[in-house]
């Protein structure tokens, strides 16, 4: 044993065995490759990307990059409002976002965390232009040249390639690309001048952002267009803090003239408060700061009725707590459905396994018959059966068991969902039970009886334990199917009999809160996997026989 075994040609036996096995594995892989590719492309990738939305949160930092940066220094618990710099950053971020029409999306996102923010963002986007006009008008009155887009272009365009501030240009390209979700790499007829942007940093940045935006998104030439009001605001702000007297670049005399005119500068915090008084509270700022990360646990917290606040995780207010209850109800009802299926399916499976072949085949066809009928038809049939003016109530009233005035309410509640879903999922319970029972020879029961056991003892001590793997397989199947069921509870569940899946569908198609839908879906998936794992630990997945 000390020396390695050698194959006939002298290579170590282990290596030649591994080579032979690898070839087999590759061939097997080749056979399943088409299916694998299909599943990956049509199933795993879409589901993975959908579930990823449950933690994805880059919309805040993509839309308000400067605000997020300057807000990071603000202490939310101090009680004070953020300083002027934050309002300033917000003004420029928001202006660009409003031009790109992205501010409402951010408002919708933040509204999940704090109601009211959606309308706040929408209104503010409209009102922002007015702030800029207050500085643009005096500037244009001072010198008509400011009305002309070519003036601005001359002022900031690089005079030589050595003067080009390439970093600023690419930074603004990247920013616009993130904001608009489109690549912003088209040709821009503008190269920021290092000298000018160093002298007037805010204006330079604002102008560059504008230039990149109009060139890449609108396809216009920035040299001939008038810049946004925000650029004028930026110039007014810059002229208050820098001295342009020593500047010798193009248009220096215009800048000197503007600085000496002492243009009015808007107080941005006051201007924001004017737009909407909510900006003068810490509520929107706290929300933005708390949810500024690229990834968030917020959706998952929402999915369990909790919420991320500046002070940590907290429960939602009582009137908004429904998801935990819905999860609990989904699990409880799925269990009820599973048990109903066991109770109804076991005798049928037993009969199937013990009848002579021909009769068993006929019965099997009856069991499978529902599979050949549309799910929607079967569910709708239950609606006809169970409603208050439906078949069952009519019959009960007719035979006098139920008073006409007090017809039973059997639909649009949990009872309706359990009945309809038990019916629909029953075959999934019967088939695995049947295939297990088929393998139990009748001689076991005979042996038990010959040993003195009564029919019941023989069944309970000998037959039943051997049929447990079938019950287990059927239960896993039915429970997993039930826990994610959507159509039937949607149709017969009313408000009290719906499942978590109906809530997911609501968030996907109505509220469009895909992050929360993805978080709910992820939790559901995790719950199923945990159950599967627990079952494997307790019963052993090897014991599950599906046929």
């Amino acid at each position, binding site marked *: 044993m000390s020396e390695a075994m050698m194959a006939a040609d002298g290579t170590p036996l282990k290596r030649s065995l591994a080579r032979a096995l690898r070839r087999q594995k590759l061939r097997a892989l080749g056979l399943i490759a088409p299916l694998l590719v299909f599943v990956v492309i049509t199933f795993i990738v879409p589901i993975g990307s959908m579930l990823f939305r449950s933690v994805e949160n880059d919309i805040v930092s993509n839309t308000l990059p400067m605000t997020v940066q300057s807000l990071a220094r603000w202490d939310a618990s101090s009680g004070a409002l953020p300083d002027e710099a934050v309002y300033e950053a917000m003004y420029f971020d928001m202006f660009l976002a409003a031009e790109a029409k992205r501010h409402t999306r951010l408002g919708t996102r933040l509204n999940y965390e704090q109601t009211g923010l959606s309308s706040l963002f929408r209104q503010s986007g409209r009102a922002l232009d007015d702030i800029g006009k207050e500085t643009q008008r005096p500037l244009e009155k001072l010198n008509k040249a400011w009305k002309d887009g070519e003036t601005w272009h001359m002022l900031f365009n690089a005079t030589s390639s050595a003067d080009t501030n390439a970093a600023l240009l690419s930074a603004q390209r990247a920013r616009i690309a993130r904001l608009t979700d489109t690549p912003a790499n088209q040709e821009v007829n503008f190269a920021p001048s290092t000298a000018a942007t160093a002298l007037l940093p805010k204006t330079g940045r604002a102008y560059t952002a504008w230039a990149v935006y109009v060139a890449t998104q609108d396809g216009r030439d920035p040299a001939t267009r008038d810049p946004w009001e925000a650029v004028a605001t930026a110039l007014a702000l810059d002229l208050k803090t820098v001295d342009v007297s020593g500047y010798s670049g193009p248009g220096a005399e215009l800048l000197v003239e503007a600085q000496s005119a002492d243009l009015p500068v808007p107080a941005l915090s006051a201007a924001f408060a004017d737009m909407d008084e909510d900006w003068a509270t810490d509520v929107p700022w706290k929300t933005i700061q708390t949810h500024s990360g690229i990834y968030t646990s917020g959706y998952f917290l929402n999915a369990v009725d909790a919420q991320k606040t500046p002070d940590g995780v907290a429960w939602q207010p009582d009137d908004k707590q429904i998801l935990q209850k819905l999860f609990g109800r989904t699990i409880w009802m799925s269990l009820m459905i599973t048990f109903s299926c066991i109770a109804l399916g076991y005798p049928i499976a037993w009969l199937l396994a013990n009848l002579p072949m021909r009769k068993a085949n006929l019965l099997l066809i009856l069991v499978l018959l529902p599979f050949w009928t549309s799910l929607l038809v079967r569910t709708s049939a239950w609606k006809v059966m169970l409603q208050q003016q439906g078949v069952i109530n009519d019959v009960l009233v007719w035979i006098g068991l139920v008073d006409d005035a007090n017809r039973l309410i059997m639909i649009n509640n949990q009872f309706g969902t359990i009945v309809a879903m038990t019916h629909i999922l029953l075959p999934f319970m019967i088939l695995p039970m049947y295939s297990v029972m088929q393998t139990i020879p009748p*001689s*076991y029961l*005979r*042996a038990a*009886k*010959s*040993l*003195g056991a009564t029919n019941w003892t023989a069944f309970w001590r*000998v037959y039943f334990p051997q049929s447990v793997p079938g019950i287990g397989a059927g239960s896993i199947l039915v429970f997993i199917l039930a826990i994610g069921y959507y159509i039937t509870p949607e149709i017969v569940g009313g408000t009290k009999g719906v499942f978590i899946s109906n809530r997911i569908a609501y968030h996907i198609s109505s509220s469009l809160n895909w992050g929360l839908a993805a978080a709910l879906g992820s939790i559901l998936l995790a719950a199923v996997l945990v159950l599967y794992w627990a079952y494997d630990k307790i019963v052993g997945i090897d014991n599950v026989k599906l046929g």
Partner: protein
Amino acid sequence: MANTASDQAFVAFERVQKSYDGETLVVKDLNLSMPRGEFLTMLGPSGSGKTTCLMMLAGFETATHGDIRLDGVSINNIPPHKRGIGMVFQNYALFPHMTVAENLSFPLEVRKIGKAEREEKVMRALGMVQMQDFAGRRPAQLSGGQQQRIALSRALVFEPELVLMDEPLGALDKQLRETLQFEITKLAHELGITTVYVTHDQTEALTMSDRVAVFDDGRIQQLDPPDTLYEEPQNSFVAQFIGENNTLMGKVTKISGDRCEVTLDSGDIIDAKPVNVSEVGQRTRVSIRPERVEMDKTRLLPDVHSLKAEVLEFIYMGDIFRTRLRVAGNEDFVIKTRNAPDQVRLTPGTQIDIGWLPQDCRALDA
């Protein structure tokens, strides 16, 4: 023993009939009585009704007509679990989810026997088949022979007076089968239990039983101890079914006492013992065992006929020689001779004379 009246018998079938479909009888008028302690084998081809009889005795099938008595009491209406009959199944039917000890304990538990006594009885029953060391194992962890031993001890653990075995050794290889045949008969006799054993293997039936009931077509064709069965078959079915047998067709031409003369279809005349024939002119099938055919004329009676035969094939089988001959037009006539030093080895094509003692050649029904 065979003629014990049914009211003294331990197990008795009286005019039992069984039909599954209401049109054909699977068991036709079965009468059988067994004394206590007997080992009786039901032997027959498949579909002969032997298993149905066993199932009626066990209570898993009800007799369509007739009476089955156990120790003088009619058990027709007693459910199987109250009959107290031990049973061993062909596929062992050991409960796979219980250990060996739990399997054995099961019949005691349902009889509400206390734990201590249960354990003692289980170990004793396992001891009977030398399987004490396997008490904690699951049936799937045992070999076929071990499983059958456990099945046997489970059928015996609650001390039944009657044990039924339904082809218990059918799934085992030859050597193991022979060992277990011996063990089963030894146990049955030691414990004094009455045993009904069903098999289609005639060697098993002959070696194990006190008496063998040969079944065919829903009837017992012959019920006798093994030697009688082999040497004195009562009809051509039994003669064919038990052991190897040469048959020749012919017509009785002379009959006197326990000797008759049969003219074969080929015209040859032979001597035989009349069993199922009573008058001259009847067609008959004569049957003679291969080992009773004599090639040495000096060892035959002087007044018997001999036949010409041509050797077709000589097969060396170790302990015996098997020679296939053409005799009176029959090409499947086989003789067996002991491999003795002076025994001639016949070569194909040789012409010889053969004969036999008249009492070894039985003239049966055609």
